[in-house]
Each structure stands twice: as structure tokens, then as C-alpha cells.
């Protein structure tokens, strides 16, 4: 179970976002910049929250932004955004968000391999804070790659 490679462009550290939409958009832009999705995918990720609520905040401090596979996805990809100031998504338990993960998958099964690897990394309860405080992109990669040893 391996995560898609995390290019420099896919990691944005200490980003400033005024609200949840901007936070998700930064994660989407990072997927676009790394060549894995078009801006329509970013719009679709935002629409998921507009349609269904802030359920993408799946753990304290972490939002998993994603939409369905489709024409807007060019490759399996992941982006990681840490926020300089935490952002409220309106979640009953897991606000505020400090880390937004953007996830794009060409096909559902590829998605599942990536989410399994994410689960390996983040089932360690210290991992979200460690990513949020990571000083460098390599520090982020090191935390996420713990998943590949599990």
C-alpha cells in the first residue's frame, strides 16, 4: 500500500485561508499544480461539502477533501496543505482544521489503496499535529511515509 508520490507542488505549508472554501481550494490548486486534476475537480470537492456538510473533517484537525473519479482527474494524486491559522468547517466535533488533504483518484480501487495508506499514517494519533507543525516538505513526507512501513 503506497501513497501517490508527493511532489513539492503538492505540499503547501502554512497557507492562509479565510474560510473552508479557500482551504479546500488551496488543496485543489495543489492537485492542479501537480498535474493530477483540473480546476473542475476543485469545484467538485467544494460542492461535496456544500451538498453534504462538513463530513470531510474526518478526524480532529483534519479534512479529507475529495470528489468522485471522473474526467477532471488526470492521475492518482494527493496534496497536503497545512494552515497557518486553523479554519472552521462547521463540524460538530473535529473543528478547527489545521491540515487539508486533497485526494484525486482515476478509479475507485486506486483511491482505496491511497486511503488505506493514509489510514496507516494517520491512525497514529500524533500524526495530524505532526503534519500541521511540519517545518519542511520533507518532514511532511516522512510522516506520511510511515504508512509504507506498516
Amino acid at each position: 500500500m503506497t501513497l501517490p508520490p508527493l511532489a513539492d507542488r503538492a505540499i503547501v505549508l502554512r497557507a492562509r485561508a479565510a474560510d473552508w472554501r479557500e482551504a479546500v481550494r488551496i488543496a485543489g490548486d495543489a492537485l492542479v499544480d501537480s498535474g493530477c486534476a483540473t480546476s473542475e475537480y476543485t469545484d467538485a470537492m467544494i460542492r461535496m461539502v456544500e451538498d453534504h456538510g462538513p463530513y470531510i473533517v474526518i478526524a480532529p484537525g483534519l479534512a479529507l477533501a475529495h470528489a468522485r473519479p471522473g474526467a477532471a482527474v488526470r492521475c492518482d494524486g494527493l496534496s497536503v496543505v497545512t494552515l497557518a491559522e486553523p479554519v472552521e468547517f462547521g463540524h460538530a466535533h473535529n473543528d478547527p482544521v489545521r491540515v487539508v488533504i486533497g485526494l484525486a483518484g482515476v478509479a475507485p480501487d486506486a483511491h482505496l489503496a491511497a486511503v488505506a495508506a493514509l489510514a496507516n499514517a494517520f491512525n497514529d494519533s500524533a500524526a495530524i499535529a505532526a503534519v500541521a507543525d511540519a517545518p519542511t516538505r520533507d518532514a511532511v513526507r516522512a510522516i506520511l511515509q510511515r504508512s509504507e512501513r506498516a
Partner: protein
Amino acid sequence: MKIVTICGAGIGSSGILKVNAERVLQRLGLEATVVAADIASVARVAADAQVILTSAEFVEAIGPTRADVVVIENYFDTEELTRKLEVAIG
């Protein structure tokens, strides 16, 4: 036994829940099929399920069902998942 995990797209957060539910079930020594699905297909996919794992946001949309609907707050907390699955499965 069949367990269905539900989210908006059926692939991201429900995938995390599926992976972690499978881990917990294995640890508990329980046999179950765990399927990730989107909210639009819940009626079809969960028709023969005993348990539905999801977020609070989807409970209303899931509607009437014979399955136990279990709300998970922290998808990465396998202790929460273990505790709630043990209650649901009895």
C-alpha cells in the same frame, strides 16, 4: 455479516472507514464484508447490511433502514470504532 460505510462520494472518507473497520474486525476475530458506498446508493447497497458506518451528516439522508446506523466521529480512532462496532454487533 455485511457492513456498509457511507460518504458523499463513496471513495474517500468511506474508504478510510472501510479500511479501519476491516482492521478492527480482524482484531476482534469477526468475519464481515465491508463495502464503501456513496449516499446515493445506500438503499441498494445497504439493503442486506447489519451495520452502516457513517458521519452525522448522512444519518437523515440514509433514512429508514433495518441496519444499525453507527456515527463515527474520528475516522482514524480505531478504539472508537472498536467500541461502537462491538455494541452494534453485540
